[in-house]
């Protein structure tokens, strides 16, 4: 029983870090550059498709990952330079609408290029086996890998934002772009690169989640809302916040799905308990978000 709970906790952590991979890029662009980018999910989709295709044609997951991430970053930068850059000083609604337009375009374009059928990346062989953790309890190696990469990226990003000059420029440019330019920072360039970084993180998420999740048109939207939830719970713009939010969401989701049915079955008739439990666990993360925002209207890691 204890082991079971531990496993579910680990599942929560793992799911949380999956979400973090996606939220990290989102919180960069949303929080730090103050831009709501719905097309984030599209970049995730494009990344996954590119990596899957490159992996399939070259046979090497590593090559597919690296090349796919680079390509997606390039697409992100191109998108930023051609269109999105003009949105920074617009209101959030405008950003929402334009990036929604991009979603429409991206979805249909991907469907035309790759077809409507879902496609596949298989797990790289090296990571496809399970790793014994405690006694005979095994956990999929690939999921452990995701946990590791998630934590690594969290650390690197926090360093970049907090400790480097570029990080300061990014934040300065976010709050007062004109002034940051007047102080000598090339904010245009910095923002393009940040956007590229956000896109690259999307692609990494796409590549790492690809072997676990279905790769299909519209895959971005289903996970985008979750990513926004994570970002908002954590406090917009805070990388630690995104990490904390992601872990919290992952945990609540996993434990909710585990515990609620167990508890409800204790005193309710089976059918009712099952359906009620599944409803409750479906709304659990939204409930979590509402509670967090009620308690801290600016998210957990707000300034």
């Amino acid at each position, binding site marked *: 029983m204890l082991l079971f709970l531990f496993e579910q906790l680990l599942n929560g952590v793992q799911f949380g870090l999956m979400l973090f991979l996606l939220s990290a890029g989102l919180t960069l662009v949303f929080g730090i550059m103050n831009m709501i980018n719905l097309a984030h999910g599209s970049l995730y989709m494009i990344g996954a498709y590119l990596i899957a295709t490159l992996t399939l044609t070259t046979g090497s997951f590593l090559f597919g990952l690296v090349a796919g991430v680079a390509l997606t970053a390039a697409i992100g930068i191109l998108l930023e330079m051609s269109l999105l850059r003009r949105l920074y000083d617009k209101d959030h*609604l405008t950003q929402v609408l334009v990036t929604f337009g991009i979603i429409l375009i991206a979805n249909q374009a991907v469907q035309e290029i790759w077809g409507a059928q879902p496609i596949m990346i298989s797990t790289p062989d090296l990571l496809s086996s399970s790793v014994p953790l405690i006694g005979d309890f095994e956990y999929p190696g690939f999921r452990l890998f995701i946990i590791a990469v998630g934590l690594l990226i969290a650390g690197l990003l926090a360093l970049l934002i907090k400790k480097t000059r570029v990080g300061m420029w990014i934040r300065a440019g976010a709050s007062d772009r004109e002034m940051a330019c007047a102080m000598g920072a090339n904010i245009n360039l910095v923002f393009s690169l940040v956007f590229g970084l956000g896109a690259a993180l999307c692609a990494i998420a796409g590549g790492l989640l690809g072997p676990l999740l279905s790769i299909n048109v519209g895959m971005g939207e289903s996970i985008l809302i979750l990513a926004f939830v994570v970002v908002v719970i954590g406090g917009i713009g805070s990388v630690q916040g995104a990490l904390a939010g992601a872990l919290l969401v992952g945990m609540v989701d996993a434990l909710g799905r585990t515990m609620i049915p167990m508890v409800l079955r204790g005193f309710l008739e089976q059918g009712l308990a099952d359906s009620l439990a599944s409803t409750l666990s479906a709304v659990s993360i939204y409930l979590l978000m509402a509670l967090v*925002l009620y308690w801290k209207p600016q998210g957990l890691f707000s300034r």
Partner: protein
Amino acid sequence: MKSRSLVLWGIILLLLLALPAIAQAFGGNFYVGFATRVLILVLAASSLRLLIGELGLVSFGHAAFFGTGAFVVAILSKELTAPVGLLPGTDSAWIAWPMAVLVSALLAVVIGMVSLRTKGPYFIMITLAFAQMTFYLFESLKMYGGDEGINIAHRSRVGFGLDLGDNVTFYYVVLAVVALGHLFFHFVVGSPLGRVMKGIKENEIRMQALGYRTYWYKLMVFAIAGAAAGLSGALLANQNSYASPNLFSWLQSGHLLIMVILGGAVSFWGGAVGAIAFCLLEEVLPHLTKYWQIAMGVFVILVVMRVPEGLTGLRFRFRLPKGGSVTPVVKLTTSEVKNG
């Protein structure tokens, strides 16, 4: 000037009144139904515009009220045949529609009480969260149809010998309701309350310093907008003879938002114009091209980039001298500026 706008309004009114006849002449009951649907969405979009344009509250959960209104009508009609709920069912419009308004207003009060503590993007997301909760709730409430929704046997009854089952009659009733709704909005916006709303949108802290408990004002307008969206949902349930949990989905909220921005949130008719444009696009584009989603995306982007104030802003293009600007919708900043 004054008389010219009167003439314009006269023409629009005449067109709206004559629409069923025109549509039937061009061979389609379908277009009457389509126009009815558009009118219903106009009401919903205008209610959201009231929140965004006048109060600066961007709600991403407006579908919650829209859906609630629809389900109130549907559930009441369902209970008619199988009374299991607390209330006896009814198919009278005089009971069902006000109930829809009331229940969605109540829901808006509850959601608003929590959501209005937050600001900007947090408000956007928390309203989305509540809408998602209602979505999952209705999707799994087997008692009320679950994900398959509720079919409504026949449209609400209004008496006076009017049969809403007839599409043309229903069109006129909807037209009347939607027109009344807009008269009400117009009245609110022009009243002292409207001025308070503008003040809150511009500078909420200052409003507090001037003696306004802004929270309650926001809550009240949120409830009004929720109620109007509920009414429009009730109409839609009638129109479709059907209510499904999809009405609560975030896509539905998103579509309403898009209508408002497309039309222009700062202008009174922004919601209406946006709803009409959006519905027309949805209806026409798939006929024109296989790649209609791309076309839609490009259109949306073009409108927003070229006419930032929305379609209603085009009107200004011909009046204002070059360089004249229209005040933009609130910019939501993540960091609260230190005041004083």
